[in-house]
C-alpha cells in the first residue's frame, strides 16, 4: 500500500513532464509550439487512460470492491435501523444459545479429559459379588487392595488413589484464624499420573506416602494465592492441619484440572499424602484411578484384578474373598447422570437454531420485498445477477458478523456463569471453555447463513416482474409466494415457542413440586460420616466400639444427637433389598420384599424421622434378647388393610423372626420422586455380623463446623480409625436433583430465548409492514377512519398468523409432551393449566411486540405520505 502510494505520487507531474519533453523535442525539430504539442499528445496516447491503467497496476480489485460494497451495505442498513437491530438481536441470541449448548455438550460428551493419555485412564471400583449389579461406586476400594495393586499389577502402567470418594474437609490452624479447607489425601503416584506439575517446590516423593513418614502437603495455586499471598518462600514452611504440623513441599500449577473435571468444580485447596501400608488393616475407602498399559483391554484388567483379589484374601483378609472389581473409563462415571439431559439440551438447541434461521429468513424476505424496485432498476441498468447476489450476501454477512460477534460474547458470558454455578454440580464443569470446535462450528453456521439469506432475498424476484418495479408507485408486495413464506415463517416460530414454553413450564412446575416433597426425614442440620472398623475390630467387639463412638460423639458440645445407620437415606448407597416374611408363612417373592436398613438407637430422632407408634430401639435390643424390628407407615397400612395389627406382627428378616415394636414415617431413599414401599429397620445389636461399616449421622445446628471435634471424639476411641468424607444430608438430596435442575434450567432458558426471538421477529415484521403500508394507512386516515382502525389493519394479518401458529404449536406440544414424562413429577404431560399459561404468555408477548411498532401507524401524516416521491 505504501509502495503504491509512493510510486503513484506525482504521476500527474511525471506524465505532464513527459509530454512537455516530447513537445520540446518537436519544437527543436522545427515544429510550431501548437503543432509540437499536438503531435506529442498523439504520440503519448490517451492521458486519462494511461492514468487509469497505471493506477490499475497497483489496484487489488477484489479488495477495493469488497470495501466499497461493505460501505454501501452499511448505508443501506442505516435506512432501516429497526429491522437491522431486530436481525442483529436475533442472530446474537440464536448464535449465543447455540454456541453455549454446543460447548456444554462437547465438553461433557466428546472432549477428552484433560489428563495425559486420557483414553487409557480408568476407575477401579470394588463391589460385593453377592449383591445384585449396582452402579459402580467410586470410593469403594480398601487400603490392603491398593497396597497390593501398587506392586503386582501388570495390566496397569500405574495406579494412584485418593481417600474417600470426594475432597474432604480439613481444619488449618496456627497463623491467623482457623479455617476449613477442602483437601484430598492422595497417594504419591496420583498427581504425576494426572499430569500435575509444581510451579514451585515439588510433588510427593516415593517414600512420602508411607505410614509414619514426615507429614507433607502440596498446596493448590488458588489457596497459595489466597492464604499466603503467593509468597515464593513458602516451601519448607510448616502449616498445622488437623493439629498435625505439615511441611509445605510445593505449589501446584493453576492449570491442574482435577477439581474441575472429576469433582464438579468445587476447588481443592491442598493435597496431603495418603499413608499406604500393605500390612495395616485399616479399612478406609479409597477411589482408585489407573492407567492401563497400551493395548490392554478393560476385560483383561478385570481378570487380573480378580486373581489378585483371590490371592489377597487369605488369613485375616479372608472376608474379602467375595469382592470383585470393575474397570470403567474415567469419563463414564463422571458424566453418566448428565448424559441424557445434555442430549435433550442439544435437541433444544436445534429448536432455537431453527427458530433463528426462520426468523431471519422472514425478516430478510420482508425487507427484500421492499427493495424489489431497487433491485430491478439496478438489473435494468446492467448489473448481473451475480453482482446483485454478491451485494445481498455482503449485506447479510455484515449483519451476521455483528450479530455473530455479539452472540459469541453472550456465549462467553453464559459459559462464565455456568462455570461459577457450582451449585449445579455439572460434571466436568471446569473444562467448560469456548474452544476451537465451537468457534469453527459457529463460523460455518454464520457463513452458511450469510449466503443463504443473501439468496433468499432474491427469492421473489422474477424476470417478468421487471416492469412492475419500475413503475412509480410500487405499493406493498404483491408476490403471493413471498407473502406465503412470510406467514409460514411466523406461524412456525410461534409453534416452536409454544412447544418449548410448554415443556419449560411443565419442567419448572415438576421441579417446584419435587423440591417441596417431604423426604420423610429432616435433612437440614445433619451430616453423615462413614465409619469402618473392618479388620481393626473383630466382630464380637464391634458393638462395644460403636457404643463408645456414639457416646463420645454425643458428648461433643453442640451436638444434639448422633446415631448409626448402615446407609444414610438418599446417600451414595441405596437401602438394601431384604425379605420380610410373615411368621409361619412360606416365602412369597412378589409380596415379601422390602427395603431394609440397620440402625442404632436414637437413629430416628437424629435423622428427623417420626416414630408414629411404639418405641425406639434401645440398649435392650441386643442379642440374645428377643429380636425386634420397626416398619414404616406404608407397610403398616397394608397390614391393617389385611386386618393385621402391625404392633403384634412378627416377620422373619435376615434369618431371624422379629417382633414389630415401632411404626415410623416413610423415608425417601433414592430420590424425592421415590414411590412409597415397604421398609424395615433392625437394630444394630441384632444385625448379622458381616455388616461392618456404618454411616454416623450427627444432628447439630451447624454440623459441618463440628467436623473436627467429631473426628477427634472418634479418634479418642481408636486413634487410627479411618473415616469417610463428611457430607451434609442436604447435599445428598441436592445431588439427586442435579440432572433435573440442569434440564429444567436449560429448557426454560431455551424457551425464554425462543420467546424473545419470536417477539423480535414479530416486531421487525410489523414495523416494516407499517413503513410499507404508510400510503394505505395515510389514505384511510385522510378518508376519516379513526386512528385505531389504522392499527388494527396492520395487526390483523400478523395476529392471524400468530393464532395459526398457536393452534399448530398446541397440537405439537400435546404430541411431544409425553416424551418428557420421565422428567416430570406430580404433573401430567398434558396439564391444562400449563398449556393455558404458556399460550397466554406467548400471545401476550406477540401482541406487545406487534403493538409497539404499530403504535406509530396513526401518527403518519397523511399529506406527507401521499406526496409522490
Amino acid at each position: 500500500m505504501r509502495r503504491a502510494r509512493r510510486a503513484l505520487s506525482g504521476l500527474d507531474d511525471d506524465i505532464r513532464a513527459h509530454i512537455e519533453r516530447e513537445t520540446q523535442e518537436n519544437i527543436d525539430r522545427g515544429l510550431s509550439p501548437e503543432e509540437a504539442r499536438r503531435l506529442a499528445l498523439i504520440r503519448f496516447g490517451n492521458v486519462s487512460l494511461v492514468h487509469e491503467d497505471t493506477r490499475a497496476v497497483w489496484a487489488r480489485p477484489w479488495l477495493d470492491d469488497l470495501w466499497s460494497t461493505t460501505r454501501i451495505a452499511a448505508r443501506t442498513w442505516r435506512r432501516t435501523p429497526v429491522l437491522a437491530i431486530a436481525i442483529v438481536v436475533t442472530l446474537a441470541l440464536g448464535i449465543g444459545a447455540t454456541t453455549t449448548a454446543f460447548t456444554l455438550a462437547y465438553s461433557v460428551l466428546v472432549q477428552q479429559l484433560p489428563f495425559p493419555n486420557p483414553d487409557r485412564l480408568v476407575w477401579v471400583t470394588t463391589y460385593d459379588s453377592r449383591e445384585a449389579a449396582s452402579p459402580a461406586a467410586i470410593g469403594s476400594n480398601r487400603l490392603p487392595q491398593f497396597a497390593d495393586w501398587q506392586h503386582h499389577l501388570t495390566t496397569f502402567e500405574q495406579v494412584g488413589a485418593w481417600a474417600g470418594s470426594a475432597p474432604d474437609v480439613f481444619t488449618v490452624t496456627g497463623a491467623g484464624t482457623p479455617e476449613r479447607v477442602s483437601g484430598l489425601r492422595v497417594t504419591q503416584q496420583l498427581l504425576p499420573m494426572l499430569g500435575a506439575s509444581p510451579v514451585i517446590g515439588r510433588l510427593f516423593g516415593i517414600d512420602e506416602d508411607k505410614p509414619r513418614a514426615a507429614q507433607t502437603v502440596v498446596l493448590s495455586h488458588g489457596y497459595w494465592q489466597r492464604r499466603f499471598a503467593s509468597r515464593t518462600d513458602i516451601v519448607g514452611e510448616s502449616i498445622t492441619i488437623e493439629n498435625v504440623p505439615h511441611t509445605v513441599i510445593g505449589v501446584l500449577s493453576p492449570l491442574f484440572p482435577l477439581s474441575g473435571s472429576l469433582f464438579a468444580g468445587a476447588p481443592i485447596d491442598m493435597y496431603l499424602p495418603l499413608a499406604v501400608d500393605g500390612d495395616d488393616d485399616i479399612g478406609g475407602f479409597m477411589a482408585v484411578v489407573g492407567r492401563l498399559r497400551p493395548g490392554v483391554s478393560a476385560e483383561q484388567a478385570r481378570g487380573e484384578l480378580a486373581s489378585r483379589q483371590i490371592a489377597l484374601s487369605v488369613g485375616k483378609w479372608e472376608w474379602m474373598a467375595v469382592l470383585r472389581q470393575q474397570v470403567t473409563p474415567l469419563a463414564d462415571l463422571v458424566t453418566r447422570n448428565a448424559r441424557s439431559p445434555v442430549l435433550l439440551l442439544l435437541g433444544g438447541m436445534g429448536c432455537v437454531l431453527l427458530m433463528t434461521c426462520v426468523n431471519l429468513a422472514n425478516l430478510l424476505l420482508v425487507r427484500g420485498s421492499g427493495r424489489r424496485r431497487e433491485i430491478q432498476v439496478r438489473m435494468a441498468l446492467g448489473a448481473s445477477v451475480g453482482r446483485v447476489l454478491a451485494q445481498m450476501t455482503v449485506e447479510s454477512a455484515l449483519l451476521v458478523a455483528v450479530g455473530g460477534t455479539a452472540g459469541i460474547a453472550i456465549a462467553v458470558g453464559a459459559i462464565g456463569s455456568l462455570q461459577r454455578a457450582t451449585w449445579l454440580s455439572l460434571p466436568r464443569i471446569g473444562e467448560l471453555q469456548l474452544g476451537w470446535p465451537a468457534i469453527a462450528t459457529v463460523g460455518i453456521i454464520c457463513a452458511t447463513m450469510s449466503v443463504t439469506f443473501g439468496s433468499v432475498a432474491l427469492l421473489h424476484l422474477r424476470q417478468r416482474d421487471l416492469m412492475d418495479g419500475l413503475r412509480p408507485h410500487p405499493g406493498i408486495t404483491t408476490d403471493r409466494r413471498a407473502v406465503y413464506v412470510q406467514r409460514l415463517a411466523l406461524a412456525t416460530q410461534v409453534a416452536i415457542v409454544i412447544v418449548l414454553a410448554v415443556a419449560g413450564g411443565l419442567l419448572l412446575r415438576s421441579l417446584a413440586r419435587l423440591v417441596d416433597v417431604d423426604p420423610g426425614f429432616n435433612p437440614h442440620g445433619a451430616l453423615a460420616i462413614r465409619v469402618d472398623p473392618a479388620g481393626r475390630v473383630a466382630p464380637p467387639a464391634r458393638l462395644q466400639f460403636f457404643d463408645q463412638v456414639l457416646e463420645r460423639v454425643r458428648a461433643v458440645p453442640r451436638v444434639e444427637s448422633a446415631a448409626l445407620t448402615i446407609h444414610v437415606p438418599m446417600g451414595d448407597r441405596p437401602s438394601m433389598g431384604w425379605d420380610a416374611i410373615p411368621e409361619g408363612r412360606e416365602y412369597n417373592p412378589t409380596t415379601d420384599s422390602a427395603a431394609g436398613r440397620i440402625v442404632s438407637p436414637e437413629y430416628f430422632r437424629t435423622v428427623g424421622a417420626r416414630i408414629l407408634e411404639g418405641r425406639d430401639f434401645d440398649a435392650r435390643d441386643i442379642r440374645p434378647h428377643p429380636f425386634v424390628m420397626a416398619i414404616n407407615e406404608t407397610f403398616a397400612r397394608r397390614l391393617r388393610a389385611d386386618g393385621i395389627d402391625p404392633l403384634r406382627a412378627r416377620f422373619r428378616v435376615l434369618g431371624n423372626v422379629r417382633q414389630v415394636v415401632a411404626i415410623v414415617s416413610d423415608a425417601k431413599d433414592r430420590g424425592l420422586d421415590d414411590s412409597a414401599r415397604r421398609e424395615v429397620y433392625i437394630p444394630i445389636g441384632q444385625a448379622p455380623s458381616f455388616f461392618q461399616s456404618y454411616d454416623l449421622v450427627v444432628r447439630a445446628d451447624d454440623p459441618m463446623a463440628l467436623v473436627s471435634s467429631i473426628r477427634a471424639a472418634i479418634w479418642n476411641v481408636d486413634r487410627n480409625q479411618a473415616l469417610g468424607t463428611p457430607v451434609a444430608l442436604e447435599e445428598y438430596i441436592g445431588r439427586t436433583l442435579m440432572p433435573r435442575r440442569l434440564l429444567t434450567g436449560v429448557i426454560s432458558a431455551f424457551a425464554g430465548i425462543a420467546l424473545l426471538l419470536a417477539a423480535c421477529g414479530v416486531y421487525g415484521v410489523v414495523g416494516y409492514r407499517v413503513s410499507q403500508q404508510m400510503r394505505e394507512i395515510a389514505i384511510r386516515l385522510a378518508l376519516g377512519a379513526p386512528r385505531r382502525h389504522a392499527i388494527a389493519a396492520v395487526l390483523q394479518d400478523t395476529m392471524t398468523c400468530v393464532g395459526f401458529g398457536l393452534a399448530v404449536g398446541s397440537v405439537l406440544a400435546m404430541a411431544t409432551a409425553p416424551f418428557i414424562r420421565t422428567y416430570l413429577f406430580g404433573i401430567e404431560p398434558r396439564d391444562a393449566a400449563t398449556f393455558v399459561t404458556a399460550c397466554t404468555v406467548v400471545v401476550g408477548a406477540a401482541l406487545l411486540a406487534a403493538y409497539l411498532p404499530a403504535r406509530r401507524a396513526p401518527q403518519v401524516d397523511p399529506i406527507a405520505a401521499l406526496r409522490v416521491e
Partner: protein
Amino acid sequence: MSTRRDRDRVDLLQGTLDLLILRTLRLGPAHGHAIVKAIEYGSENVLLVEQGSLYPALHRLIKRGWITFEEGTSENNRRAKFYQLTAKGRKQLDLETSKWDTLARAVGRILRPASQE
C-alpha cells in the same frame, strides 16, 4: 485518441516492452521520456510504441521489484523520476534475454529452414 483496440495491440507486446525497458536501464538510470527515446532510436524507429503505455509498464516492473526509482533533477533542471535496475531486475533481464533468443532462433528456423549459417 486511442481506443480499446489499440490498447489490445499494445498488450500483446507487454512482455516485450518490459524486456526492452529493462535492457535500456541496464545502461544506467533514466527518466521515462529518455527510456522511450532510447527504445525508438535503438530500434531505428521500427518500434514505435505508444508512449503512454510506458508508465503502466514501469509501474508493473516496480511492483515486481525489478526496477526502482528516485526523485531527481533532469538535464534541463526539471524534477523527474529516475528509474534504475535492481539486482533482481538484472537477473530477470538475463533470463528474459536468453528466452527471447531461444524463441527467435526457433521461429527463424521454421521460417527459413535452409539457412543454417
